[in-house]
C-alpha cells in the first residue's frame, strides 16, 4: 500500500512541478515580463531539450557516438514543412500531423542509416553519421522541393510556446519511462557491454536500431517544431556545427542523464545570449566555459544521475526501484 502511495506522490509532485512551471511561464509572457525576444529563447530551449534528450538516447544510453543528429532534424524540418504546405487542417491538428510525419520520415532515415552504420563502433560510427548528416544537407541544397540554397520560405507559423512546452514534456517523459523499462535496460546493457548483453539473451542488433531510430524520430519532431516556428528553412542551419552543438549539450549535461541534458540545454541556450554584450569575446568566453567545465567535471553536470524533486524533498530511498539510475523526474 505504501508503495502505491509513494508512486502516486512522486507522480503528483512531478506533474505539479510541470504545471507550476507552465503557469509561471505563461503568466510571465502574458504580463510581458518575458517579451517576444525572450520568447524566442524559451522556444529554442524547448527545441534544444528535444534534440539533446533524443541524442542522449543514442549517445548516452545506447552508447553510440552519433555526429549526424542535425541531419535527422533537417529531414524532420523539411518533411513537416512540405507536409504542411500540401494540407489544410486546423492549426493545432496540422502541426501535430506535420511533425509526426516529419518525425516518422526521420525515424525511417534512422533505420536506413542505422542498419549499416551500427555494425561499427566508436570513431567509425561517428564518421559515418557525420557523413550522413552532410549528405542530407547537400541533398536538400540540390532539390527543388526544398527550395535549394534559397531555402524554404513561407511556412505557416504554427509552433507556439504551448505546443513546444507540452511536446517537450511528452518526449522527455517517453524517453524517461522507456529507459526505466525492460527495453531501456536492454539499451543500457549495450552501452555497458555488448557481448555480455548478447550472452544474457538480449537481441542487441534490434535494440541498437530501435534506440537509434527512435532518437532520429524525436530529432525529426524537434526539426518540425523548428520549421513551424522560424517559418524559414535554410540548409545551412542544419550543418555539422548544429550536430556538435547538440552533442555539447549532451556531454555537458552528462551522458545518460535526462535532467542533465535539460539543464545543459537551458544553460547553453541562454549563455550565448547573455554574452551578446561582449560581441567580440562571445565565442571565446563560451569556449573557455566549456573547457573549464570539462576539466573539472568530465562526466558532465549530472554524470549518469537524474535530478529528482522527490529525492530532494525526502532524502534517499530504495524500496522498489525498477531503474538503473535514480527515481522520479523533474522538469
Amino acid at each position, binding site marked *: 500500500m505504501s508503495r502505491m502511495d509513494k508512486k502516486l506522490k512522486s507522480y503528483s509532485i512531478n506533474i505539479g512541478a510541470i504545471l507550476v512551471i507552465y503557469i509561471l511561464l505563461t503568466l510571465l509572457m502574458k504580463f510581458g515580463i518575458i517579451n517576444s525576444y525572450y520568447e524566442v529563447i524559451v522556444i529554442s530551449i524547448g527545441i534544444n531539450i528535444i534534440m539533446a534528450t533524443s541524442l542522449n538516447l543514442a549517445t548516452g544510453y545506447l552508447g553510440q557516438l552519433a555526429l549526424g543528429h542535425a541531419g535527422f532534424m533537417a529531414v524532420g524540418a523539411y518533411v513537416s514543412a512540405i507536409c504542411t504546405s500540401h494540407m489544410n487542417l486546423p492549426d493545432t491538428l496540422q502541426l501535430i500531423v506535420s511533425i509526426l510525419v516529419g518525425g516518422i520520415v526521420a525515424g525511417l532515415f534512422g533505420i536506413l542509416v542505422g542498419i549499416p552504420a551500427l555494425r561499427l563502433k566508436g570513431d567509425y560510427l561517428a564518421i559515418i553519421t557525420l557523413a550522413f548528416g552532410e549528405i542530407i544537407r547537400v541533398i536538400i541544397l540540390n532539390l527543388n522541393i526544398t527550395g535549394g540554397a534559397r531555402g524554404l520560405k513561407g511556412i505557416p507559423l504554427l509552433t507556439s510556446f504551448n505546443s513546444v512546452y507540452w511536446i517537450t514534456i511528452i518526449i522527455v517523459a*517517453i524517453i524517461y*519511462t*522507456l529507459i526505466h*523499462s*525492460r*527495453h*531501456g*535496460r*536492454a539499451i*543500457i*546493457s549495450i552501452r*555497458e*557491454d555488448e*557481448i*555480455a*548483453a*548478447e*550472452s*544474457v*539473451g*538480449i*537481441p*542487441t542488433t534490434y535494440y541498437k536500431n*530501435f534506440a537509434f531510430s527512435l532518437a532520429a524520430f524525436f530529432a525529426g519532431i524537434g526539426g518540425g517544431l523548428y520549421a513551424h516556428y522560424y517559418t524559414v528553412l535554410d540548409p545551412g542551419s542544419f550543418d555539422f556545427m548544429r550536430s556538435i552543438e547538440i552533442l555539447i549539450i549532451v556531454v555537458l549535461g552528462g551522458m545518460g542523464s535526462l535532467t542533465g541534458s535539460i539543464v545543459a540545454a537551458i544553460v547553453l541556450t541562454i549563455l550565448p545570449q547573455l554574452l551578446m554584450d561582449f560581441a567580440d569575446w562571445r565565442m571565446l568566453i563560451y569556449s573557455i566555459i566549456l573547457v573549464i567545465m570539462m576539466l573539472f567535471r568530465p562526466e558532465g553536470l549530472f554524470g*549518469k544521475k537524474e535530478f529528482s524533486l522527490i529525492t530532494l524533498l525526502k532524502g534517499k530511498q*530504495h524500496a*522498489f526501484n*525498477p531503474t*538503473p539510475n535514480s527515481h522520479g523526474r523533474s522538469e
Partner: protein
Amino acid sequence: MPLLETRDLGITFGGLRAVGDFNIKIEEQELMGLIGPNGAGKTTVFNLLTGVYLPTEGVINLDGENIVGKKPYEIVQKGISRTFQNIRLFKDLSVIDNVKMAFHHKMKYSTIAGILRLPSYWKEEKEIHEKSLELLKLFNMDHLAYTTAKNLPYGQQRKLEIARALAANPKLLLLDEPAAGMNPNETKELMETIHFIRDKFKIAILLIEHDMGLVMGICEKIVVIDYGMIIATGTPEEIKKNKKVIGAYLGE
C-alpha cells in the same frame, strides 16, 4: 536423449583448424569438465556452443534441436548460458540490475506498455525485482543488491556473473575458468557453489578450468582436448591415469 550432443563439430580459421571432430554428450544434470593445455581450443568450443562463432562443420543438438546458425541471444533463450574467462559484468550498473538484464527475454510487456507504465509493466517489474533478490539471496549477495557491480570484490564479481547466467534460466551452464584468479579459500567456496547450483537448479554444467583440484574434485566426467581434438574422455580417475593426457600436459 542427451541434453546436449555435438557431432563432428569443428571450426577452421583461415588454414588453422582450431577445433575438429568434437563429439561430446552431456546428460541432464551432469557436471562435466573441459580441460586442456593453453591454446588447446577450450574457449573456442564455448564460443561454438553459444553461437559466437559459426562452426564450419558439424552439428550441435540441444534437446534434439540443431542450434547451429542461431544467434547468441537465441541460444541463451533456448537454454545455454555462459560466463566469461575475463569477467564481463555491466560494471556501472547495480548488482540487481545486472541480474535483471538476464530476465529480459522472459518478460512479456511491450514497449508501449513500458512507456505508458500500464499495469503489466508494474506487475512484471515487481515480479522480476523479487525474483532477482531471491536469486541474489541464494548467493548471499542480497545485501549487496544496490552496490555498483565494479565495486564488488573479485570473488563476488565471479559469483554475480554466475548468478546472472542462472537468471536466464538455462538447462546447461557453461563456466569459463570460474576459479581463475581465486585464492584456495575462494576456490573451495566456488566448488561448493557449483555443486549447490547443480542440485538446486537441476541443470547440467560444463566448465573449463585449469585448477586440477577443482576439476577432479567436482566433475563426474572430464573431456581433455589438445590442438583442437579430443584426446581423452572419462571419469577423473581414468583421466588421471591416461597416458595421452599426461603426455599433453607434461610432454612426452
